[in-house]
């Protein structure tokens, strides 16, 4: 196992004085993360209390960066925004916000209104909480107190959940076998819609009840139902854990940190076994389902195996992705495809405490002698230098790596992480039993063909 914490030019050359100064980081701001989360709650209307460009920046830099998606029915230019300018900086933006919430409730259909405050109100000291409180008898309105400078979009996801827990959730009777899904971060995880759908289907197939929290219809209901879960599942080594811990403290709901969304039969089967055990679902039921699904998947695998063997067998590969996506891909490549993982560059800037655990997940439990060198970096320049420095045949990364892979590595490239401007992803994903098949469908046509 090798672990290099990259803080500068190539990591080993010099430490950057300001590591956060970076070329095209792999995330947007906390306001963006909260905005993305609010848009992912179908039926919620985000209200940005910010400069007029924050929503547009995060349309082009977040939802479009997430597989060229618009933000849905309340996204892009539809999202209400207070459009603060200098006079609000001088005189305060509270009155502007008050009028905006009032008119939004009048005009826009919504089950829930989510006020997200940005840099300007944070810097001028608007009392947004008080303004939001004025509307408590008119409609469900919550406030995500964030900004652009307080952190990145992963923090914004956590802050959104935090605001939901504080603003909406009340104790509920526990529904047996109900689980909530956390850690699949809207937009930052570009396959989030498909992943939530797939995880829900898988878990329901073994007899669990599933609240995906995001993406389903009946959004306010889904949020309100969170405390009814018997168990919270966090498919992420760090992001979403904070919410799960808070839910445990507040409502006594235990949580299981699953670290990653499983890809392919091996890890999917293991995930289902674990959840079945936790929910006291008879193992016979889970096992028979797993066996049937496995048989099916490998049967289909036979259709594509020959093209796979021609085009990209035992590839030296690199993964450039957020931690949970990187873990799924390294494991699937190493354990099911016979690839040789060379490099795993983790791009979501996980907190210090999570680094060792992520590194272990990326380097232990892998077939074959090789384990990837693990780097933590989000600077697109230094990432490029790292990729350039070694021979690779497959690069699973973002669209930032697309032309670099082709011209500097002669490697096959597929966008699997943020930002992904080179493919349109609605609910396709690589999760679950069939996830590996989906991925191979998206890549094995390259360099392959009959005589």
């Amino acid at each position, binding site marked *: 196992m090798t672990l290099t914490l990259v803080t500068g030019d190539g990591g080993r050359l010099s430490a950057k004085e300001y590591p956060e100064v970076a070329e095209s980081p792999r995330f947007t701001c906390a306001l963006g993360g909260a905005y993305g989360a609010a848009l992912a709650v179908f039926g919620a209307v985000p209200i940005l209390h910010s400069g007029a*460009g924050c929503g547009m*920046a995060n349309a*082009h830099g977040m939802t479009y960066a997430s597989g060229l998606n618009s933000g849905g029915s309340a996204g*892009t230019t539809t999202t209400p925004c207070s459009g603060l300018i200098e006079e609000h900086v001088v005189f305060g933006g509270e009155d502007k916000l008050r009028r905006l919430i009032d*008119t939004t409730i009048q005009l*826009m259909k919504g089950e829930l209104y989510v006020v997200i405050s940005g840099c300007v109100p944070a810097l001028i000291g608007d009392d947004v909480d008080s303004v939001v409180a004025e509307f408590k008898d008119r409609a469900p309105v919550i406030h995500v107190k964030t900004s652009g400078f307080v952190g990145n979009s992963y923090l914004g996801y956590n802050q959104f959940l935090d605001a939901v827990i504080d603003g909406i959730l009340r104790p509920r009777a526990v529904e047996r076998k109900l689980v909530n899904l956390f850690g699949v971060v809207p937009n930052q995880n570009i396959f989030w819609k498909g992943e939530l759908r797939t995880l829900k289907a898988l878990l329901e197939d073994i007899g669990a009840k599933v609240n995906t929290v995001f993406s389903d219809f009946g959004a306010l209901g889904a949020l309100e139902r969170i405390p009814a879960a018997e168990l919270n599942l966090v498919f992420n080594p760090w992001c979403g854990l904070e919410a799960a811990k808070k839910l445990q403290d507040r409502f006594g709901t235990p949580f299981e940190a699953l670290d990653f969304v499983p890809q392919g039969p091996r890890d999917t089967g293991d995930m289902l076994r674990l959840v079945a055990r936790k929910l006291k679902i008879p193992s016979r039921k889970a096992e028979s389902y797993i066996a049937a699904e496995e048989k099916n998947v490998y049967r289909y695998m036979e259709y594509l195996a020959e093209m796979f063997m021609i085009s990209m067998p035992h590839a030296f590969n690199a993964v450039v992705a957020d931690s949970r996506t990187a873990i799924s891909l390294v494991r699937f490549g190493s354990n099911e495809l016979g690839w040789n993982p060379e490099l795993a560059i983790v791009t979501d800037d996980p907190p210090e405490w999570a680094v060792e655990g992520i590194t272990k997940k990326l380097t232990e439990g892998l077939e074959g002698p090789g384990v990837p060198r693990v780097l933590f970096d989000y600077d697109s320049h230094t990432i490029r230098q790292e990729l350039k420095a070694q021979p690779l045949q497959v690069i699973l990364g973002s669209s930032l790596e697309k032309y670099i892979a082709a011209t500097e590595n002669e490697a096959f490239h597929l966008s699997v992480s943020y930002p992904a401007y080179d493919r349109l992803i609605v609910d396709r994903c690589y999760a679950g039993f069939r996830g590996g098949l989906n991925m191979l469908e998206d890549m094995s046509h390259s360099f392959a063909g009959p005589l």
Partner: protein
Amino acid sequence: MTSDREETAGNGRINLDDNTCPTREQRANGINAFKGKASELVDKARKGELRNCERDFHQNSGCILNFYLTVRVATIRDAVMIVHAPVGCSAPAALYREVFRRLWTSMNRAADFDFHWLTTNIGEKDVIYGAADKLKFAIDEAVRRHDPQAIFILTSCASGIIGEDVEGVVTEVQPKISASLVPIHCEGIRSRIIQTGYDAFWHGILKYLVKPAKKRRKDMVNVASMLSYTWQDRAELARLLGKVGLVPNFVPEFARVSDFEALSEAAVTAPVCPTYTDYLSRGLEQEHGVPYFLYPSPIGIANTDEWLRTLGRMLGLEDRVEEVIKEERAHWIPKMDAIRAGFEKVKKANGGDYRIMGSLGQGRLVTQTPFFHELGVTTPVALCQDFDDLLLEDVENLLKRVGDFDIVVNTFQAAEVAHTARAYNPDMVLSCPFQGSAYKREKGMTRIHALRGDGRGWSAQAGYAGAVACGSFLLQATRNRSFQNVMLAKTEDPYKDWWYGQPDPYYFHRKEAL
């Protein structure tokens, strides 16, 4: 020859000793709202009666940094863009390595489309203690990594409110490095009018990059291209200029730093969009004696003729221009005639008329309506993002040519656009591709434009080829509207029904003037 617009508002001297430009509100009475007749708009503008308005309901509309300086400055070759801001402000620029590489090098795309930028990623500590050292570090890092010819420093709401002394950093660091530092004051809070951002950009270009002319290049024409014009539009303008014996100096998209430095050597600055180009054109004339014209833009057949003729007059190439126009017309007019004939059929089936509602920036306001006339269709209302005095003469000319028409100025406000579309109920709505649910319609709807990374001839709009491509595209758009109908029927409208039941798209505007 110089401009004949001396009496126009906004024509004050550009002061390059200042750190940045005035806002469009200050410089040209820019406004964010109006509805009424174009004649009334002009009249009120002449009397100085137009005012900005405060909207109690306001939607995402873009700021002067993100509409869209980041994604434009990031495409300048041999330069580095530093966005002195929290990490989200530069997020749209994350497409910089990808989108433009879709253009093939066989389409005359330079091979070195390898762009670079950095964010200073302003954080919580920085807003308390300041981030000047971090900005200096970012400049060092840009030099060390890429040895660029220029470094653009874009400011943000956060850097502005915390009072970052960007000029101080530039003064201190510039003597130590060879790259030209170009600060651009585009704090989102500065202005309601996004055009202010472009003025701020040109101010930086004029102040820090354009060099005194070593020679006058009689064949070079500066063209400030727009975000919403495609690769084929550049190719078409280059083709037409080439036939006349001229070469374009396209900025800012995909330009080299040396192209900016040489702006002073050009024979003329020609427009693609008058208000976008205005500040640059004036500045180049004032500082370097480069003449300019602002109208017309080369959109539509007649405007393209006139664009070329104006160049011909200014450069003494009248005869050659007339030859070119004759050749071009012989080639393209039959194709336009066929499109007109197509629209005649559509009109006949539609009860005699076909009404198209266009929208977007000021530049399109003055080019679209005459172009619709060339196609033989009418427009019930022109939607415009903002309006300022810089456009007054153009609109007056337009009134003379096509008569009075309704105009709605609304800075991209989606609910107001949706209301206006319902109220006028045109046969076709042309909308920005990012305009929410505008595609949900019973009648026709299509995109108003494609973008820079689209290399297809299908998406062209400029010059003769663009007029024909765009006319064909619009005719094609009349044929089948199942997508628009299905989406209308099967998905919800974001606004409650009462919105469309009352008559005023400006229902939520504050009545008192600002």
